[in-house]
Every structure is written in C-alpha cells, then in structure tokens.
C-alpha cells in the first residue's frame, strides 16, 4: 500500500476533554478514505489536525514524508473544505479570485471551470450573501478543487446539498479519484461513505476503528 498520510499516536485535548485518543492510521494514496461518527466524535478535529489547522496535543501527522508542524506548517498541494465563510459582499467569482490571487497560478478560466464543475457557473456573478446553504457548500467545494490539488481534505462535503447535488458531488469525487487524487472526507451519512470510500473508519469517543458496517448514524438522503 502506497501511504500518503501517516497519523502516529495522535491525541487531542481541549482543556480536560480528550477528543482524540491515541489515533494511529495510514491513509493510502489515490483512494477515498472516509471517517464516520456522531456529532462531536472528533471527525472534524482529526481532519483539522491532518490539514495542519490544529496542533495535536501528542503525536504527529506525516504527509508525503513531511511531518506537519515540523518540516512544514501545512501539507503541500492540498485542497480543504471546512465550515468557513466567504466574503458576503463579493460574488462567487470574486471570492475565488481573492484566494487565487494568493498563488497567482490560476486564471479566470480555471476559476470558471471550478464553478462549472460544481454547477455554479451561471451563479458566478451573484453575491455570496444571496447564496442558499447548498450553493455556499458548492462554492466551498469549488474552492477546494480549484488548482487541481493532489490531496483533498473535505469535512462534511454533502452538508446542505439537495439530492441532485449530492449525486453530482459524488460523481465529481469519483472522477477525482479516477484522476489519481487522494480524498479524505467525513460524513454523517453512511450511504455516502459506503458509496464512495475504499476504506471507512469509525470514530467513537475519541477512538478510531475500522468500520465493520454495523453502524447506523443518520438516515440517508
């Protein structure tokens, strides 16, 4: 197995509350890995630690041979999706433009292509504050995939999406996997996870285990 991410003895405490307990994990390259668990089980915390946005209390995360927080602050060539907001007064395209200007590697064609991929091409001139919850989530997905990153870290990518959009995003993620990307995602919905993921892990009370399929977290879409 060609491993891209190694999680070694990771613990995370917030004051006295231990969210993650001694997590050890290897995530293979070019596959989709999923994490399931109830609200507050530590899925998002684990993904933030992998993305370098949270520091583990103990242990480390190694991505492509580089230890996060020691060799590098954040993983290279990564697209992330967490629950963050864009600037409400700007349009979808303008918001992506601000982020793209940081790398200076993406032109308008790339941005519109990302918007088109998630079905927001016609809404590109619409201000973010007028977006529905689903459209906001699609814009986050567009932001994560623009620039063609090799690793995608997606926290609840299906949140707020309608049935049609869920199908679109599933197809998108499968096509990205076919294109050789590595995807790590979380979801409440077992159906999404079963459909997409090569391997699934269950997080319960801060401990991680290989999911044996007997977990029923939420109703499917």
């Amino acid at each position, binding site marked *: 197995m060609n491993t891209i991410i190694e999680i070694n003895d990771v613990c995370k405490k917030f004051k006295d509350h231990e969210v993650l307990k001694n997590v050890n994990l290897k995530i293979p390259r070019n596959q989709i890995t999923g994490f399931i668990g109830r609200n507050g089980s530590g899925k998002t915390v684990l993904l*933030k630690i992998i993305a*370098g*946005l949270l520091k583990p209390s103990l242990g480390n995360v190694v991505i492509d041979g580089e230890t996060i927080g020691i060799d590098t*602050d954040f*993983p290279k060539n*990564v697209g*992330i999706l967490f629950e963050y*907001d*864009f600037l409400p007064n700007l349009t979808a395209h303008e918001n992506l433009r601000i982020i793209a200007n*940081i790398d200076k590697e993406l032109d308008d064609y790339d941005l519109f292509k990302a918007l088109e991929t998630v079905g927001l091409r016609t809404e590109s001139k619409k201000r973010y504050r007028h977006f529905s919850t689903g459209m906001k989530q699609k814009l986050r997905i567009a932001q994560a995939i623009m620039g063609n990153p090799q690793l995608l870290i997606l926290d609840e990518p299906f949140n707020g999406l309608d049935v049609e959009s869920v199908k679109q995003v599933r197809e998108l993620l499968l096509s990205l996997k076919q294109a050789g990307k590595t995807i790590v995602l979380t979801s409440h919905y077992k159906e999404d996870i079963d459909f997409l993921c090569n391997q699934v892990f269950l997080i319960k009370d801060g401990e991680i285990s290989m999911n044996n399929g007997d977990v029923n977290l939420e109703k499917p879409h």
Partner: protein
Amino acid sequence: MRSRYFINAFLAIGVSGVVFLFLDKLPYFRYLFLIDSLPQLSYSDFIFVMEKYYCLEVIVDIIFTELLFYSISVFGIILIYSRYIEKLGPVIITKLGKKRFLLFLAKKTLALLFSVLTVFMILTLVIESNYFSFISILSFFIRFFIITSSMTVFMMTMIMQRNVLYSLLMSILVYAFLNLSIFVYFNLVVSQTVLSSILFLLMIIAINLGFVKILRDYFGIHEII
C-alpha cells in the same frame, strides 16, 4: 469588482473628510501637533505654550484626538481580521504558511491604514494648503504611524503567541521605542508629548485588554497559528 473599489475610495474620502473637519474644530488640536513635530520650536516657545495650555482642557483634547486615531486603526484592523482571518483564514493560511500569512496580514493592515491616511492628507492639502496645515498633517502622520504600528504588533503577537501579557508588552515596547525615536529625531524637550504619550499608553493597554476577549472568541483561529 472595480466599481466596488470606487465605492470604497469614495467612502474613504468621505470618512477622512469628516474626521479631518471634526479634528479641525477642536480648540488646541493644531497647536498641540505643532509642538509634537516642529523641531524649530524654541524652549521659550515651549514654556509659553505650557503656561498657556497646560490645563485639563488640553489633556482632554489630547485623549480625545488620539482616541480618534486609535479608533481608525482599530477599525482597519478589525476589517482585515474579519476578512482574512475569520472568513478566508483557513484557506489562505494553508496556501501561505504561518510566517507568510502573518506578513500578508501585516502588509494588508498597513496598506489599508496608510491609504486612508494618504487620502486624508491629500484632502487636507486641498482644503487648506498652507504651511501650518502641512505641519499638522505631518504630526498626524507620525502619531498615526506610532499608534498603528503598536496596534498591529499587539494583534500579530496575540494571534501568534496567544499570550496577553506578552502581546501587551510587545505593543508597549514598540510604542515606547517609536515615541522615543521621534523625541530624539526632533530633538524635543520633555514636553506635553510625553504627557500625551503616557496617557495614551494607558488607553492602549485598557483597550487592548478589551480586545483580548474578541480575539479569544476566535479560538479556532488561534489554533491555526
């Protein structure tokens, strides 16, 4: 996006104009700033000024004026904070890395504040183009620079170190160092500048402590740095 730049520029001119007109009406505003920055003032002039203006009213004016400058810099920093940390922060920081992200924030903050200041200066010169106005603008610039730098250092160290005492200490050190440099450069005697500096320093500490709560509310942001 271009039309929005025009709107922002228009707003900046409007706000700066109102601020200037407001300050211009303050009784001792100009003269106090003349003292702060004009190196040609002789000691006797200074004594004269002290006799004439050393009163509660002057102190109130100093506090009020500097509080106004401080508010402008705080407003600018909150704007940058909300835009580039609270909202787009996680995405930008993963692209830039921690150090470049902090430089990016500092650059954005200073650029915003000094563009407002430039508009303010141009506007002042257009309204009243004489030597006296120029000197008062120069004083304003110096004051604004000191306050902005101190405030920026506070925010940056607070984000980086998450330590209130350390951040306050750093901002006070920057404030003191810049003030001292100004005193030495303009060869100022111990003056009302010192008085205003000390008063303002106390205000900086008080207001920065107020800011600590706001910064702590963004716990996730602290974690990423």
